[in-house]
């Protein structure tokens, strides 16, 4: 009983204990904030890295791609674990905007748009597809032009007008684009506005009616950071009107990976895509799968040596699996199934084609993205560790303070022992004291850290408003907000460590108090 009594009493009466509590509190809060923000950052990166990927990726990491994808997809679509699969082609190209003369080296991705929507989150990152549902296509299209209309003064041609109106009725909010002058004017007149950036139908007699203009060209979806600039408020300012013609130069590669003559083709900017990963959004453009396959000469064709037809090729297959399926086990089965596919269905492949199939491997999306996720994960662990090490300072501080108290209280220790306090009992007073400092400091730090993390974006807003200082610049990080969730298990773990660390800090003092001879302690001046 006396242990608890004296512990509490000393905690209340010794002001110096507050410094120890403050140190523990600050360290707890610091580690909690770092862990939460970095952990949230990691989660967001994972989620975003996911963006373009299905649950499982089948790939052979070879420049020439691999054949028999349609046969394979047809086969595995019957498996109960598989929800949907779609082929993808990756290649390189140069994207040129004739209106500005800007040229970007890009990764050109061939997708079946209707399929890829069902396999990955790709569809959710499209802007015009959200504001004008159903108008984004990779097929041939003309440029929609704004024009005068009797009803609202200014409008888009069909089907863009109705699609936009339908989205507006459904309550879709444009939180992505910086309102341009046309929209500001329309808003002033009480018009819902025309989200995005469209060119006007300019004629010699002024603005003409809404129209679809220009030569039809296949659509291209461009990474948002190529066609727009992210503003500090997280919105994008687009530089090019929708439907504008762009030139894409690609280099066909043969089966063995050798390079053919480059081809330059016209596309129309149908939409822009955002995954949230700057690396992807500033470097990727998406065109129709079959179209790209043809341009790359990856489609089925007669072999030059006259030995029959060579099958069409793709670079990757993305698979969405049903919930609750063990992805790792499935990957092993998929890999084996693909490698045996030519024999099973009895297709004659050349040695080169056979080699491409034998290199195929199915991996989960996490495995395929380790190069993105791994560094962030390491970074989180490293930063947490660094702050943990810094927190050792707090433990040393607790150690000093408690040892000082033990020195100061030498006589009292003797008194307590002389009235029957045992060595272990007196030592445990100091351990309890340390633990109590840990509990109080840890709880306060956890509370403070929790509140700070929850309101971290509000603090940021206050800082921005007051000093124009933005720590988390949205145009740099491409995350809308600073992650602000505290995981309960992090909270519990940090709190526990704070108590243990602080108790550990009391060991020296406890040792001194416990080993002190009562008579010596009483003689202490």
């Amino acid at each position, binding site marked *: 009983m006396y242990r608890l009594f*004296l512990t509490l009493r000393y905690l209340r009466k010794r002001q110096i204990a507050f410094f120890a509590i403050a140190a523990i509190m600050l360290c707890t809060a610091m580690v909690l904030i770092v862990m939460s923000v970095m952990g949230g950052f990691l989660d967001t990166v994972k989620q975003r890295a996911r963006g373009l990927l299905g649950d499982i990726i089948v790939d052979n990491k070879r420049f020439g791609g691999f054949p028999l994808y349609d046969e394979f997809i047809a086969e595995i679509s019957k498996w109960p674990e598989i929800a949907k699969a779609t082929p993808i082609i990756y290649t390189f190209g140069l994207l040129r905007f004739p209106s500005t003369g800007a040229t970007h080296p890009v990764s050109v991705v061939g997708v079946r748009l209707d399929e890829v929507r069902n396999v990955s989150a790709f569809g959710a990152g499209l802007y015009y597809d959200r504001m004008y549902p159903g108008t984004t296509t990779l097929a041939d299209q003309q440029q929609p032009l704004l024009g005068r209309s009797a009803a609202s003064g200014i409008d888009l041609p069909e089907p863009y007008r109705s699609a936009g109106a339908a989205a507006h009725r459904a309550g879709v909010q444009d939180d992505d684009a910086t309102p341009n002058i046309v929209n500001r004017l329309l808003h002033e007149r009480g018009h819902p506005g025309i989200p995005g950036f469209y060119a006007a139908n300019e004629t010699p007699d002024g603005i003409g009616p809404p129209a679809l203009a220009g030569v039809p060209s296949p659509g291209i979806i461009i990474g948002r950071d190529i066609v727009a600039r992210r503003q500090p408020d997280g919105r994008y300012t687009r530089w090019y009107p929708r439907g504008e013609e762009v030139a894409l130069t690609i280099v066909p590669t043969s089966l063995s990976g050798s390079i053919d003559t480059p081809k330059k083709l016209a596309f129309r900017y149908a939409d822009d895509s955002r995954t949230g990963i700057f690396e992807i959004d500033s470097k990727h453009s998406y065109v129709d799968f079959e179209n790209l396959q043809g341009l790359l000469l990856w489609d089925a064709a007669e072999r030059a040596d006259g030995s029959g037809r060579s099958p069409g090729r793709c670079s990757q297959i993305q698979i969405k699996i049903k919930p609750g399926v063990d992805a790792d086990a499935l990957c092993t089965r998929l890999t084996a199934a693909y490698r045996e596919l030519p024999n099973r269905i009895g297709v004659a492949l050349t040695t080169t084609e056979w080699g491409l199939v034998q290199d195929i491997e199915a991996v989960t999306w996490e495995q395929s993205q380790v190069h993105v996720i791994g560094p962030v994960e390491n970074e989180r662990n490293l930063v947490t560790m660094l702050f943990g090490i810094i927190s050792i300072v707090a433990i040393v501080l607790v150690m000093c303070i408690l040892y000082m108290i033990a020195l100061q209280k030498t006589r009292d220790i003797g008194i307590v022992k*002389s009235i029957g306090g045992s*060595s272990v009992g007196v030592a445990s007073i100091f351990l309890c004291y340390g633990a109590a400092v840990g509990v109080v400091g840890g709880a306060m730090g956890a509370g403070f850290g929790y509140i700070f993390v929850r309101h971290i974006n509000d603090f940021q807003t206050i800082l921005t408003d007051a000093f124009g200082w933005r720590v988390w610049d949205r145009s740099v990080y491409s995350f809308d907000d600073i992650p602000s969730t505290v995981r309960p298990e992090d909270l519990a773990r940090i709190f526990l460590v704070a108590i243990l660390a602080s108790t550990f800090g009391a060991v020296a003092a406890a040792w001194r108090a416990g080993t002190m001879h*009562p008579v010596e302690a009483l003689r202490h001046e």
Partner: protein
Amino acid sequence: MSEAALLRAEGLHRSFQMGRGALTVLRECSLSVAAGEFVAIMGKSGCGKSTLLHVLGALDVPQRGQVWFERTPTFSTAQPRPQRSQFDDSFSGVERRMVELRRRAFGFVFQFYHLLPELNVLENVLLARMVGCSLFAWPGARAAANRDTHEILDRVGLAGRLSHRPAELSGGERQRVAIARALVHRPRVLFADEPTGNLDAETGSSILALLRGLHRDGQTIVMVTHDSGVAACADRVCELRDGAIASARV
């Protein structure tokens, strides 16, 4: 040596390491105290009175010799005996018996009061009861402890000063608190190390009157003093000389 000895010390030897040499304070010191007896120990300053009292009161361990309380040895006979650190022995049971004696059988009054400055009068006394009580037993024992504490503080005349800090008390009052603390668990033996040494004559005699009153009620008291006037109120006066009890007069 009386058959009815409550406390019996025999062949006590205690020396202190001083640099290279050793200072022997007690050598072949023997003493026996009967139940209900009031014994005063006298001697020159520095002759080892306090040391003897500490050994008798289970606060210190002699190098040789043994102390029996109710015919049970105070210290383990296993050698070597701890001199400085008692921590290592706290698990082995060497300390446990001493701690038990301090908690239940002995009460100590020091020359310099030795009260805990953070606690008030009531808490200082109550602490001696808490020490012998586990956390879970305390709620049950609390009422009795409180009653005893109030009773003993009333007896030493401090009923009205319960919430005062030691710093707010006079020397005599502090000594009374110390006596109350030493008595609150109803010890069999009360050890007093110059209880009046720091007090003026008048306050000293009131403390002595208190001790005499306790003795009349049957309290066994062992008191150290160098004042023969103080020693006069004891049943028996022993003189400590050259590390041993030289003479005893009744």
